[in-house]
């Protein structure tokens, strides 16, 4: 505790952090209050009155989570060239959405994705299956967001993780319960601006510093400066592969499958799809997909630049740094005893940030060979660097003023809260609109439907908060696999529902089941030890069907195979069974054309 107080007193960014988080949270609450709604159309699809460009910004904030904001640049920094599977995977899906799904789903114009599946295939079963998939995918995803909120609070404000999660829950509950989709949309628009500014200011600054003022724009520093060449040289000198060399961490086939699974999964995620229900027209749905990807691309093209700069800077400034002092810190507050190294760079760079970050435990040093210097060569590895500190430490590494550090904290919270809100609405609409109103109380009045919708948001927030504080072992695994499952279930069923008028109920239900079961079995088979928190030694309980990766395809990429299976099964079964009824064929004709 005394250490925490000491840190708080010494950290000049803390008052700024309180100020920024206070101001942005007050703004979210104000927007939530002003967008409160009283009917289900406002609650679930914002009254279909959101302009294309605003929906683009909201979609971008909805999409870019705490992981995109805080984790992705670090992930790319670690993976090098192979990190492009995340960059392409999480942007390429928008082309599929814009061309193949969004305009037609907007024309269909109901409230949820299960609405479309249930109506198009004239099947309550299909609707239930779709609603359960939507709840499962969104719930696993949202748990990670709430944890992200807690981490930012505990790192920057020194409140316990639980308190951070609970504060986040109250903020989201306020605007989501009052305003539903309308409140969520307009807070997301604001959150987009907070997070993009918070990401770009440090990115521009570090580009400028590392290129000695030649390039201010990270994307152009990435392309035109000699940083890549210098980084490649350092990597080779230290015994690693070149940074720009592909397939160092994954095989070519595996990169292909993972990229594809992320792209098709993105296009099949319900919280992204429903954003396109909120615009006024089919035309606006196409244009808002353009705005969404443009807004996302601003961050996604800056992130690989930040990843590369940060790696260069870490290796360049830490390798060969002289140890000028070591402080031993006794174990406190559940933290193990550790040594804090004070370093001095032979190149004259300021390494105070390296000292400061050691107290978080995310950066640590050990002078294994007692040489008095830190070596980062592959064979010695005297530093342990957590990839999550890449974005968070950039402002300090770049020597930016304290208020920028505070802005990054506010940006991380904006990214986590906006994504959480979008996911919570999907969970609540699936439970209230698709399951409760459809099957339990079809005669519910408008007021009753609203009450159930609001109640379900509160239930979803409590569940998310609980998972955020007590993350089950499988959450980290399943967030990555949510994409595979979405690709293997929703994407083919929605696509064929629009483009293949012969696709029928039998085909869709069997396709979804085959796709999901295949993908889930492969994932569980490969990851059962982490999912059920048991050790691999207990080999006798290891399922027979999974002894090694199928053709070297990792569980992250298997969704692509599941999707192809789903397509094949749906197409074949549909043609072996009776065609869909006349109303369904008329519906398909109708949604294909705007007028």
């Amino acid at each position, binding site marked *: 505790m005394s250490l925490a107080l000491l840190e708080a007193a010494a950290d000049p960014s803390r008052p700024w952090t309180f100020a920024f988080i206070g101001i942005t949270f007050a703004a979210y609450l104000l927007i939530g209050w002003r967008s409160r709604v009283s009917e289900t159309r406002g609650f679930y699809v914002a009254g279909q009155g959101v302009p294309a460009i605003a929906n683009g910004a909201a979609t971008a904030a909805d999409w870019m989570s705490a992981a995109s904001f805080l984790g992705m640049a670090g992930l*790319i920094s670690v993976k090098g*060239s192979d*990190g*492009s*599977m995340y*960059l*392409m995977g999480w*942007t*390429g899906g*928008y*082309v*599929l959405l*814009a*061309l*193949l799904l969004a*305009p037609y789903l907007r024309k269909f114009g109901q409230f949820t994705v299960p609405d479309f599946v249930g109506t198009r295939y004239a099947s309550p079963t299909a609707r239930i299956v779709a609603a359960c998939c939507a709840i499962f995918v969104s719930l696993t995803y949202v748990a990670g967001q709430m944890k992200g909120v807690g981490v930012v609070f505990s790192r920057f404000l020194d409140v316990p993780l639980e308190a951070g999660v609970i504060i986040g829950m109250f903020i989201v509950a306020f605007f989501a319960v009052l305003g539903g989709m309308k409140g969520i949309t307009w807070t997301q628009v604001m959150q987009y601006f907070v997070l993009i500014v918070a990401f770009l200011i440090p990115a521009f600054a570090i580009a400028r510093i590392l290129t000695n003022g030649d390039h201010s724009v990270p*994307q152009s520093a*990435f*392309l*035109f*400066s*000699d*940083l*890549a*060449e210098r980084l490649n040289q350092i990597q080779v000198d230290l015994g690693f592969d070149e940074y*720009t060399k*592909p*397939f160092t961490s994954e095989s*070519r086939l595996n*990169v*292909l499958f993972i*990229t*594809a699974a992320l*792209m098709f999964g993105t296009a099949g995620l319900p919280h992204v799809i429903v954003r396109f229900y909120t615009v006024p*027209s*089919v*035309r606006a749905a*196409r*244009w808002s*997909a*353009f705005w969404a*990807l*443009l807004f996302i*691309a601003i961050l*996604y*093209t800056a992130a*690989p630049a930040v990843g590369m700069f940060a790696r260069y800077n870490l290796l360049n400034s830490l390798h060969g740094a002289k140890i000028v002092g070591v402080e031993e810190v006794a174990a406190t507050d559940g933290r193990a005893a550790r040594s804090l190294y004070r370093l001095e760079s032979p190149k004259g760079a300021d390494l105070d940030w390296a000292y400061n970050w050691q107290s978080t435990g995310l950066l640590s040093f050990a002078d294994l060979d007692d040489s008095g210097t830190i070596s980062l060569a592959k064979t010695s590895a005297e530093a342990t660097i957590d990839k999550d500190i890449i974005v968070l430490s950039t402002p300090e590494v770049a020597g930016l003023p304290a208020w920028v550090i505070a802005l990054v904290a506010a940006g991380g919270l904006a990214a986590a809260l906006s994504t959480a809100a979008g996911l919570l609405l999907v969970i609540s609409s699936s439970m209230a609109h698709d399951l409760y109103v459809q099957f339990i109380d079809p005669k519910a009045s408008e007021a009753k439907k609203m009450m159930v919708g609001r109640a379900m948001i509160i239930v979803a927030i409590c569940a998310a908060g609980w998972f955020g504080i007590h993350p089950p072992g499988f959450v980290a695994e399943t967030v990555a696999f949510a994409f595979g499952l979405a690709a293997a279930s929703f994407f083919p069923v929605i696509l064929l529902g629009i*483009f293949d008028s012969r696709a029928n109920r039998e085909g869709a239900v069997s396709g979804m089941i085959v796709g999901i079961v295949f993908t889930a079995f492969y994932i569980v088979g490969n990851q059962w030890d982490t999912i059920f928190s048991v050790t691999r030694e207990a080999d006798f309980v290891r399922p027979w069907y999974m002894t090694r990766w199928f053709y070297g395809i990792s569980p992250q990429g298997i969704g692509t195979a599941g999707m192809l299976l789903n397509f094949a099964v749906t197409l074949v079964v549909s043609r072996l069974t009776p065609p869909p009824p006349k109303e369904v064929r008329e519906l398909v*004709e*109708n949604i*294909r*054309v*705007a*007028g």
Partner: protein
Amino acid sequence: MESDSVSENKSGREAFWRANKRLIFVLLSIWLIVSLGCGVWWIEWLNQYTIGELPLGFWIAQQGSIYTFVVLILIYAICADRLERKYGVEE
């Protein structure tokens, strides 16, 4: 739902849908070639060339493909608007 307009302009609607499918096919072919083709499958071959100070394949995988995606959606939004006007099927 809108059966009057459907019967009035059936040929326009069918012609729009055919033209729309052609457009989608062309744009998605580019999407596939740039992303999974140039960004993954042929990346090592493309890396023998350079753009700016970077290997070409690496730049496409981390930057160029994303710019291409944005442009593809922009082209589709513009062309679909035109197709709807041409075949008289606007909202």
